[in-house]
């Protein structure tokens, strides 16, 4: 005959184990939740940063070309290379529109536009880039700009401001192809300001936001994160002109 003595947990031990186990699980769960929220927030900010950096780098490169004249350019009327529209209508915020030209070859002139656009069925906005080419065969014989690319340049951009600065450090305005045509040549530095909003809501409660870029300020009350980015560009080719 085999005598077996089986001793497992007592009731007290089991209860203590359950309580400790539950406390541990709760601690793990809340810690995970905190880390997950922080990760989402940082990831969202990282995405905004990365998008803004890529976009502003490309915009800076293109703006440095503004006003470039090809030495064999066929059209003698190349005087339009920089243009800005202030407080574009149709947006809650007084945003700007930027347009500039440069020669790509003796016959091709590139025009690039940057401006905010609304998504379909939404008041949210993105920064759009439109790349066009004008072909010229002889002096004053150029085609209308042919739209080649109309793209979403950066998602969820709320504000886009452009400031032209002259050699005295003062703002130049207006700069356009009409009354402000002569002012194009005064521009020595171009400042670009962007405010980007996170793709997803990352705060648990609504927050009051006031953002000011250049001369424009606006307010928002929601759960999104925002950040502003800026660059200065020295338009080398305009100065040479």
């Amino acid at each position, binding site marked *: *005959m085999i005598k077996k003595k089986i001793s497992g*947990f007592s009731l007290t031990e089991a209860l203590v184990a359950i309580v400790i186990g539950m406390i541990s699980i709760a601690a793990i769960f809340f810690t995970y939740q905190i880390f997950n929220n922080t990760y989402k927030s940082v990831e969202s900010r*990282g995405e905004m940063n990365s998008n803004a950096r890529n976009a502003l780098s490309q915009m800076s490169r293109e703006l440095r070309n503004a006003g470039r004249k090809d030495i064999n350019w066929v059209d003698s009327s190349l005087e339009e290379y920089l243009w800005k529209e202030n407080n574009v209508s149709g947006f809650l915020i007084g945003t700007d529109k930027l347009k500039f030209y440069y020669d790509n070859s003796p016959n091709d002139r590139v025009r690039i536009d940057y401006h905010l656009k609304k998504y379909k069925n939404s008041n949210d906005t993105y920064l759009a880039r439109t790349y066009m080419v004008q072909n010229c065969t002889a002096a004053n014989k150029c085609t209308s700009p042919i739209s080649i690319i109309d793209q979403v340049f950066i998602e969820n951009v709320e504000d886009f401001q452009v400031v032209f600065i002259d050699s005295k*450090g003062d703002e130049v305005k207006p700069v356009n192809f009409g009354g402000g045509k002569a002012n194009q040549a005064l521009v020595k530095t171009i400042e670009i300001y962007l405010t980007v909003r996170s793709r997803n809501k990352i705060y648990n409660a609504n927050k009051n936001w006031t953002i000011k870029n250049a001369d424009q300020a606006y307010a928002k009350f929601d759960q999104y994160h925002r950040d502003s980015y*800026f660059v200065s560009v020295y338009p080398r080719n305009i100065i040479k002109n």
Partner: protein
Amino acid sequence: MNKNKTIKGISIIESLVCMVIIGIGFIAIMQLSAFSIGSMSRAIEKNKVNFLTEMMMEDVIADPDQIKEYSKFNERCSYNPNNGSNVYEKQKDKWRKRIKYENQIKISNKYKTPRCDANKDIKKISTDAAGEKARIKFLTNKGKSKKYLGLVIK
């Protein structure tokens, strides 16, 4: 033949020790996660510093004749504007405003401001005697994050 056999389960002490070991492992994983989040956060801050230094560099390039005047830019955390009328003074005041996020972003009625250590966080431009080269030094995060940018202007 009689055999006395005692079959024991896990004692409470053993299970507690086991949980402590698992807890240590969990804390280690959390620390790893915290470090990676911190790294991403630092990368974002460095990106901001890149924007600031590139703005300074471009402004200096745009004003090559006054390059020596920019060498007087030496800031810690006070960022007091000079309110000068020259272009270099206006540009330097603009940098100061941008570096300290002056009136830029207000969240829940509080302006966002960067952390700054007055002893270690230096933002400085130095130039050579001929006024042809410039160097931007930008230290943040108690001097640990260092950004240097060299320029040949002329």
